């Protein structure tokens, strides 16, 4: 039996490798190689009728799926099931995965399918072969969660959790951890539901005490469920989020901070912006000192300079006494506006306009010039073209006003954008524009040519 399992855990037979290496030499795999070979193979081994019919059923079922003809796909799927009796062991081993993949998709969309049918199918599929039990259980549970049947999902996950096969392999362990984490998530759902009910109850109520005790009993269970998984490298946003929320509720601030710090700074984890965002939000809630907040945001700034938290970062930096922080504050704004998705953010432009004014008033022309140096050759066409002047003015006058000031400051009075906005005669903004003209004359980093 152990021999069999070894064979099972090794997907991709050795034959595939040889096949492609011979000619292409590159090690690249071509799924369409088979088609070419079939067109040539005159003397080769012919496929058995059985293999031919199952192959045809499979391709027809896939085709029907892609045309969203669920009943038709179901019919072909029904016939495809014969592949489980294939004498070719490789076919037979690959079959359960294909059947589950296609079958679950058909049942998910089929107009006459319901949760019972799906569950019956999933239960049967779990026990064909040994390797798919956990995966199918997990997806089955997800399906049930999606349909709002949390209790059934919980039951499925509990069954999966206790399932063992042979020696515990690392892949099995990760899957079991994942199953437990989802179970934890379900418990979090019921916990937060209870918490909400509790908040609606009166403290003097008789029921309050029992409810409170109920909630308390949850804590240690869920921590076990989550903690195993979130040590494995990965993206575990929903788990971390709910785990931290529960830890915070029970006053375990240190535990929560440890979880979040590990999630954000462990090098084995991908650089997930959310990890830093969660940590920042936690620290903010915990009223952590500003320096700590700044250090978290500084890292987030390096990963995602386009995030909207960068505006908060800027405000924090602006308030700082350190000169280098104030300089960074300018850099953060400039980098934020580099990105295509942020060009229409009025807040960002307003911040930049006012901060430019402030910086230049404080005689830090060098900072502005340093930032402007790398943007000099592309910001004018990217932000301050005639086209944008027209369309910004049409769509958002405030935006156009802020941008015009920045354009005038950075590019001088002759800039197309600035001149266009200046020319517009608008009643409400007339005074503002006049003011802008004045301050541009005063602060512009471009010295007007001597007339």
């Amino acid at each position, binding site marked *: 039996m152990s021999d069999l399992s070894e064979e099972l855990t*090794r997907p*991709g037979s050795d*034959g595939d*490798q040889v*096949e*492609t290496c*011979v*000619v*292409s030499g590159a*090690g*690249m*795999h*071509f*799924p*369409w*190689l*088979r088609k*070419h*070979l079939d067109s040539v*193979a005159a*003397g*080769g*081994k012919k496929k058995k009728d059985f293999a031919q019919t199952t192959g045809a059923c499979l391709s027809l079922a896939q*085709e029907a799926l*892609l045309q*969203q*003809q*669920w009943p038709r796909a179901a019919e072909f799927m029904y016939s495809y099931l014969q592949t489980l009796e294939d004498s070719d062991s490789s076919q037979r081993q690959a079959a359960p995965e294909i059947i589950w993949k296609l079958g679950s*998709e058909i049942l998910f*969309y089929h*107009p006459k399918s319901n949760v019972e049918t799906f569950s019956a199918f999933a239960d049967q599929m779990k026990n064909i072969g040994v390797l798919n039990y956990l995966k199918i259980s997990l*997806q089955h549970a*997800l*399906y049930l969660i*999606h349909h*709002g049947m949390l209790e059934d999902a919980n039951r499925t996950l509990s069954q999966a959790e206790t399932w063992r096969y042979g020696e515990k*392999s690392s*892949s099995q362990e*990760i899957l079991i951890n*994942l199953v437990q984490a989802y179970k934890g998530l379900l418990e979090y759902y019921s916990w*937060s*539901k209870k918490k909400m009910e509790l908040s609606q109850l009166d403290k003097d109520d008789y029921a309050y005490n029992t409810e409170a005790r109920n909630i308390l009993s949850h804590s240690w269970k869920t921590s076990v469920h989550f903690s195993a998984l979130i040590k494995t490298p*990965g*993206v*575990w*946003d*929903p788990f971390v989020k709910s785990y931290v929320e529960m830890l915070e509720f029970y006053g375990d601030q240190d535990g929560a901070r440890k979880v979040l710090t590990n999630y954000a700074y462990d090098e*084995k984890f*991908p*650089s*997930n912006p959310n990890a830093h*965002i969660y940590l920042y939000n936690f620290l903010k809630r915990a009223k952590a000192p500003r320096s700590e907040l700044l250090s978290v945001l500084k890292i987030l700034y390096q990963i995602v300079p*386009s995030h*909207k938290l960068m505006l908060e970062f800027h405000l924090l930096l602006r308030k700082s006494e350190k000169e280098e922080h104030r300089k960074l504050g300018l850099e953060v704004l400039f980098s934020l506006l580099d*990105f*295509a*998705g942020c060009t229409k953010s009025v807040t960002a432009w307003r911040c930049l306009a006012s901060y430019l004014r402030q910086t230049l008033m404080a005689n830090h022309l060098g900072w502005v010039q340093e930032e402007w140096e790398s943007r000099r050759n*592309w910001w004018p*066409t990217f932000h301050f073209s005639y*086209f944008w002047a027209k369309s910004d003015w049409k769509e958002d006058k405030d935006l156009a006003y802020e941008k015009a000031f920045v354009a005038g400051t950075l590019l001088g009075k002759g800039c197309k954008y600035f001149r266009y906005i200046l020319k517009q005669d608008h009643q409400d903004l007339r005074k503002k524009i006049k003011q802008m003209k004045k301050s541009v004359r005063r602060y512009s980093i471009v010295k007007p040519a001597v007339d």
Partner: protein
Amino acid sequence: MDFPSSLRPSLFMTGPLGLSDIPDLSFMCSWRDTLTLPESPPQNCKTAAPHSAKALLWQPAMPGPLPLLPPCPDPWDPGVTAQDLLFRGGFRYRRQPQAVLDVTEQLSRFLWDHGDIAFAPLGKMMLENFRLEGGRNRSKKPVVSAKRLLQDLSGHQPWGCPWAYLSHRLRRFSIVGGPVLGKSVSRLLGGLLHEELATRWERLLLDEAFTGGALAWLPGRTPQVGQLVYPAGGALDRLRFQDVILTSDSEPQVLGDPGCIQLQGPVRQVVTSTVQGETLLAVRSDYHCAVWKVGRQRRPAPLQVLQVEKGATGISLSPHLPGELALCSCSGAICLWTPQNGLQQVYKDPETLVFRDPSPWRWADFTAHPRVLTVGDRTGVKMIDTQGPPGCGLLLFRAGAEASCQKGERVLLTQYLGQSGPKSLPPTLHLICTQFSLYLVDERLPLVPMLKWNHDLPSPALLAHLLPLASPGAPQPLFLGGLGGQVRLLHITGKEASAPQLAGPPQSVPSPADSLSAFPLLEPKSQKQLLERLEAPTIGLASAFPPCASTPAVWLFQLSAAGDIFYQHLTLQTASSLHQDAGPPSDPEPDCPVPRTTAPPVDQRPIPSWTTGATACCSRWLEALLQVPSAPPVWAAPTFSHRRLLGRLKHQEVEGKVLQGLRAAMVGGRLLQQKDLGLLPPAELPPAPEPGPQDELSERLEEAWEGLATAWWRKQQGKAPEPGKQARRPKRRTQLSSTFSSLTSCLDLPDTASPPPTLEQIPTEARLVTPYSQESAEQLWVRGVHSERQQTLRDYMAKLPLPKSTPAPEHVAMPSSQASCVQATPSRLPTPGSQPQRKRPRMGF
């Protein structure tokens, strides 16, 4: 910009491709992607019907795409196939078939067909330097003279025919000199041929030249009008601009003749982009790139042309800054190109990014930051800052365990999916396609794909196209096209605060090969031609999206390698297919007004069928296609020594309409018919086959009808079979000859005199092109060859197509069989042309 507040759980492992110990969490179905974890506990569990399970469907109006323009008048040759390159058979006992290049066969073909090239140089060398003399004490008379040997060989290939005459001299020499002379040439030749075959085979497996696609849609001033830009002509070297009007229901209208720009190389990629109201058009050829500015009147004005010495592999236009392009070449260099400021090399690395891969293919595209580019090769995708220090960057995608890639998986296409408006997908998404899967990667979270879907395309996925929103908040359709014409359509949603996901099951869109049923049934040869044309690789994908239609609709255009453009019209239908009986479906989110047409449930929707207009259009197109001459043969092998035979004889100019007609017929490869000869008065009909003794079946049936079957049978048995046969043969021949005479008697031949034509005087052309002439032709050959026939034959031989492994049409195969019979006994090949010799089925059951 906001980042999705909670990403889907996924495992992150580093390592090489196909690391088997990882539980592949993408062991997920497409429906798994439509599932979302509820952020907060679902409040009202029982009634929260899943709104994401809406069956989104873009329903095609017809079962297949229709040709937009008349077929390109240049002939198209599908090129080499696997059958030409691979060893046939031999893997009987292998479970996995193996691709083995058939160098032996190709080499032997080469030696047969191009013997003069293969052997002549050696002969020439021998002529000067080779002397095989006797020993010192003997006379100085050469034992073998190379000159004489070559004279024996000159002009013909004795190996071309088993009956060819070999002199003793030759035979002796081949025995003595064979081991010395034979090897060097063939070894060199074999090596070169193997190299060439390997390249051809690789190109057949993956032709990366058309990555990105060579078809583009230039939107016009109104949404209904636009321009298709595509290469045309047999060599794809003419860039065409075709105005098209999109109507809401019927077929698109083509406006006038297309504008045309002649280029000096085949067009591989066409890209357009409109930035800040300025539309640019960039074209990549093998060694050149060019950029045009499309003005108000949609007249393209050339801006700049660039020569890429190592060969360009990709070009892309910036979605941020007008007139900025990213360019990459086979040498591994990535350049930023602006027509005003010229080229700026931003990256160069001849090595691949993640692991070593021999492919020189590179790709470059833009990102959400106008100064950051993506650089892609087969192993991964990297983001590089063009202003930063050279060489550094951040890997965006890695073919490895991070994205749970399979063994042998390679990147085929990367595309930046930015430039969409508000409320659509965030401008930080990149599409990455491999042979197996499609990945959506967010540049803010590198290495971890936001979405993975197994596309299962049976051909390389080299074309992708993301459409703008149908309506704010609705899913965005993403077309993914394979080189084989298959197109998949995905519905992708994901506003700024949520991760991108599939909004419905992916669907397939009909490919041009699905349109075969719209064409009338044809004879096999034409049917093959049509099928080849429909199955030609798709090298371009474009779509137009008139936003004002009442129901969202898309026009999809596909360009084939044969130069044809096919179009189809897709309309959006939504139906809540899940739980239709479980209460009313919940309302969609208020900010997600998916256009709800009152679509029937999925399984009741009408299956599209061909309209009469469509079939008429197809018939017209087919008619024009059949007028297109088939591709001229690359080279025709002279199979026998007729060069020598005919070359010594003098040319004799023969003039006349008949010959011209004949030549024209031969060039076109069709039958010579009376009408081709013009002046002919309507000839008398060829005599109908007389109900002679050979028509045994009808005779017997007749008898049986009258109740005399036994009598007839006895009579038949009583007959001696031999005399009967011999009696029939002359009869048939007289019939044949009378057929010919009826044909030829009307011809005004210059050298036939007044006496009634006999069989011998019938010009060969009539025999050559008429399949019944074999028997008489044999006799002719024996008697010697008329001079005018030699000319005809010479011309004809010159036009012979290269024999292929596919069965050649009869009128091509026949003369060679005739020719091989000159000095030998007549061999009877079972060609349909030799019909008179075929035995009739014997009677009796």
